[in-house]
């Protein structure tokens, strides 16, 4: 037994020595790595940022920082940090940089690429990320589901899978202030309804009324949890003949309404339900006193005039006590003046920054290659592009962490079709750091083989514990509560 222990210790020493090499020279170039984690800022509780070296040959990684130094040997080009060691490393390096040097054996000599750094932020990110996984669909799907990923490890579990309800469409998951116990999502086609989870209690709402144009669509919770703002949309989808965007999703009509989750009544203002305008993508301010939404002059006939629809960013006051709206609408970003179209306005929980997506036209920026993320300082109101987050491809849906430090957004920059979630840190100046791709155990293999898109990434402050079976039982077996329109 003793002999075995000695052999094991010697073996471990041999293996650890085997990783360390003497650097004979420098190549003077940056290493080709995937994902590109060079120069990114990461939260101190994020899962290990494993990455692959894209070149050939034997490679090692030298990691240096406040914790000391560590050598990592690659397996088929993949550098894996152990979860526990990674956590210890980040704990010691909070607020400082990790320096990483990829060393490659060329002609018998170990040569170093230019080192790169990863900054470990003092702050943490919410521990879970919820998203929908679905084919980047034109119209069809087979399996889809809403999943939650533990950001501190690689664990990913389903919140709900459509196989439980005859492969129906499940969409638009939304949390009250990132609270895992208060959420909702919609089920369409078979067993249709809106699943509302409030403090662990699950119920189904039938949200189509005679006086609204559709069932409730894009949700956003009021901070009190009493209200949820929604749009109602008459949405259509067409496939382009020859356009890099492939698909156009457009509304032929839309309005914004607010649901009282206690009385199941919806209310609206004539200003959010104008026949001359398409209103959509509502968002409450963190204090719950304002409702932001996108509004475009109604255009017809659709789809012929689809590219003429441009959404402005608007705001109307909201009184949660009386469940009523203000009399005027402020325009924060004017589409007619600027010639661009706004979608997905999202305000940081500290109320300082508003991030939105800007594209050439329309509201379904998720299919627009020109769609970029912009921000506006809510004090000055001045919008500016978030250049460090944007790429040549689509940047679209985004959401804030609870501490207003981190933004997660979806982008098609990888291959042009499949959206992937990227995280970025915001500094006190309202400028983001270089974003980084959601870590995976083997990101190169994972993302190259994954045939589904990440849709609607939302930070969550804990694990969603409501069971899939409870949700499916409610969808299958309950009639649901009918939503009504509040009397004037």
């Amino acid at each position, binding site marked *: 037994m003793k002999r075995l222990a000695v052999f094991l210790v010697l073996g471990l020493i041999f293996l650890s020595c085997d990783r360390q090499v003497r650097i004979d020279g420098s190549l003077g170039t940056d290493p080709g790595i995937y994902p590109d984690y060079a120069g990114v800022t990461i939260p101190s509780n994020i899962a290990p940022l494993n990455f692959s070296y894209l070149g050939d040959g034997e490679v090692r990684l030298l990691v240096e920082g406040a914790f000391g130094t560590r050598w990592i040997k690659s397996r088929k080009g993949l550098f894996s940090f152990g979860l526990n060691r990674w956590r210890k490393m980040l704990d010691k390096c909070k607020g400082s940089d990790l320096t990483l040097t990829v060393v490659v054996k060329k002609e018998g000599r170990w040569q170093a690429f230019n080192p790169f750094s990863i900054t470990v932020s003092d702050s943490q990110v919410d521990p879970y990320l919820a998203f929908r996984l679905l084919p980047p669909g034109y*119209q*069809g799907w*087979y399996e889809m589901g809403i999943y939650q990923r533990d950001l501190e490890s690689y664990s990913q579990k389903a919140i709900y899978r459509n196989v439980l309800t005859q492969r129906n469409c499940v969409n638009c998951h939304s949390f009250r202030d990132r609270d895992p116990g208060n959420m909702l999502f919609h089920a369409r086609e078979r067993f249709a309804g809106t699943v509302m989870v409030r403090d662990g209690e699950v119920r189904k709402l039938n949200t189509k009324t005679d006086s609204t144009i559709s069932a409730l669509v894009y949700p956003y919770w009021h901070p009190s949890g009493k209200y949820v703002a929604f749009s109602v949309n008459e949405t259509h989808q067409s*496939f382009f*003949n020859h356009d890099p965007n492939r698909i156009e999703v457009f509304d032929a009509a839309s309005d914004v309404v607010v649901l009282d989750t206690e009385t199941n009544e919806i209310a609206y203002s004539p200003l959010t339900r104008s026949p001359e305008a398409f209103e959509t993508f509502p968002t409450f301010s963190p204090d719950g006193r304002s409702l932001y939404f996108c509004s475009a002059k109604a255009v017809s006939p659709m789809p012929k005039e689809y590219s003429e629809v441009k959404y402005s960013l608007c705001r109307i006051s909201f009184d949660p006590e009386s469940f009523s709206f203000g009399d005027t609408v402020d325009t924060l970003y004017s589409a007619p003046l600027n010639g661009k179209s706004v979608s997905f306005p999202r305000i940081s929980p500290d109320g300082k920054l508003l991030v939105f997506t800007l594209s050439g036209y329309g509201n379904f920026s998720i299919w627009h290659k020109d769609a970029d993320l912009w921000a506006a300082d809510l004090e000055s109101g001045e919008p500016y592009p978030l250049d460090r987050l944007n790429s040549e491809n689509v940047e679209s849906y985004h959401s804030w962490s609870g501490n207003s430090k981190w933004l997660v957004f979806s982008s098609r920059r990888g291959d042009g079709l499949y959206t992937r979630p990227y995280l970025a840190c915001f500094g006190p100046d309202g400028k983001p750091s270089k974003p980084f791709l959601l870590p995976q155990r083997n990101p190169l293999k994972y993302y190259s083989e994954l045939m589904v898109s990440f849709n609607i990434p939302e930070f969550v402050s804990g694990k969603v514990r409501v069971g899939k079976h409870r949700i499916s039982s409610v969808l*299958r077996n309950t009639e649901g509560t009918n939503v009504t329109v509040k009397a004037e």
Partner: protein
Amino acid sequence: MDRKRISIGLGAAWLVCVAALAFFLYYGQKYLLCFREQQQMFFFDWRYVSGLLAEPGGFSVLCARFLTQFFRPLWVGPVVTSLLAGGSAWFIWKSMERTGAGWEVFPLSFLAPAFGIVSLLDVQYFYQGLVALFLASAALSFYNRCACRKGSARVGLGSVLVLALFLLAGPVALLFGVSALVCDLVAMRRRRGGSVLMPVLAVSIGWLSVLCGSVPTMRYSCTPAFYYELMSPGIPFIHNLSWILLPVSLVAGLLSKVAGKRGTFFKVLTCAFALILVVIPFRISYFRTLNRDLMRFCRMEVLASRQDWNGIIRICSHDVRSLDDLNYLNLALAEKGILQDDLFKYPQAGPESLIVDEKSESAIDMLRLSHILFSMGNMAAAQSMAFNANQAFANNPSMLKILVQVDLMRGTYDVARKNIGLLKKSLNYRSWARDQERFLDNDALLEKDPVLGNGRRDFPEDGDFVLRSSAFDDLRRIVKVNPDDLKARQYALAYMMLSGNSD
């Protein structure tokens, strides 16, 4: 008769039955079975395999997909299916034998597997249904072989088998549990009351799997609905019959206890009666379940996916049954470059003879439409249709090939690379996918390729949507932008001839 002679005789009878079944399937169901190769795909990839194994019944799905990938030669499907059904029958017979049944009821062992084959006439009933029946029969045979143990040990073994079967093959564990209980009752085994535990355990595991959210409802965790397409609201009753008839055939083994007390003549009579009990219900159910339109579609689709245009023309030259048939026929003529010349050699029914229900969202229609739109040069519409069809079938190789080709034409190489990577993990399409890799990031080579280069030139230079009004409006734009596309031009001319429009 001594035991050895009986065994040899039964072995020979089994061989004859399996061979007869294989011939029957070859003549009646070969294209339907061949279509299963298109319906489900197997990938040599650990993540895919482990993902399936993690689901209840995943092993049976894996086996089914592994087997169906070999169904490309028309004879393989019938042979493998008859061996699976025959194997199930043999295991059932072995169980019946252990419960005291005599040779005269041997035909009854084919009752449940025969209805398993009837279920395969419905493409929404997955092949794993038959695999699961085979696994349950094998487990039952093993259980009965070990049944001489003490009552508690026997039930313990049965419970382990129930659990293993649920994990490997899904709710067929309940069928096993009920069948094992029936065997114990028929054979009057010691402490047979305890055997009730097995079906109870199967139901309990099913209930737990529902509570965990692995299976939608008890209907799926305890019945053959598990092996039926989830999207369907209900499962036809016929698919329950193989499950009902397995315990029934075990009970019917009691017949031989009556026959055994009479002479050989009575045994022969019983055997003939048992044979009739199997053959007549099978025949009636088979032909009642048989959907000739579906068979026809599968035949056409299999031929189209193999680009066997002569095969389609040969079939349609003497037997055109529907507009769908005409669509496939004219597709074959266009692909051979003789659509314009031979159009009126066959009965036509207006422009819909070229493409019908062009905006259909039915999975089966979308397969046909993808081929036709691709041939017409309407690459964007073919891509959209192929994507949706591929989703509807959870990976269909013909549709994946179209997706690869259109992405190559568009120059969206990263997306093409993903689908090529997927096809490279399959047995039958690996070499095709490897061949396409040479076009990645190689515009010059791609533009010289007759299919891809021509397809790239087919995209109209406008921002309009596909199929906004009709496929023929799109066709006009394609011919305008690429007059060298022979197939598109033939389709356009054929459309004008069929619509009486000379504009």
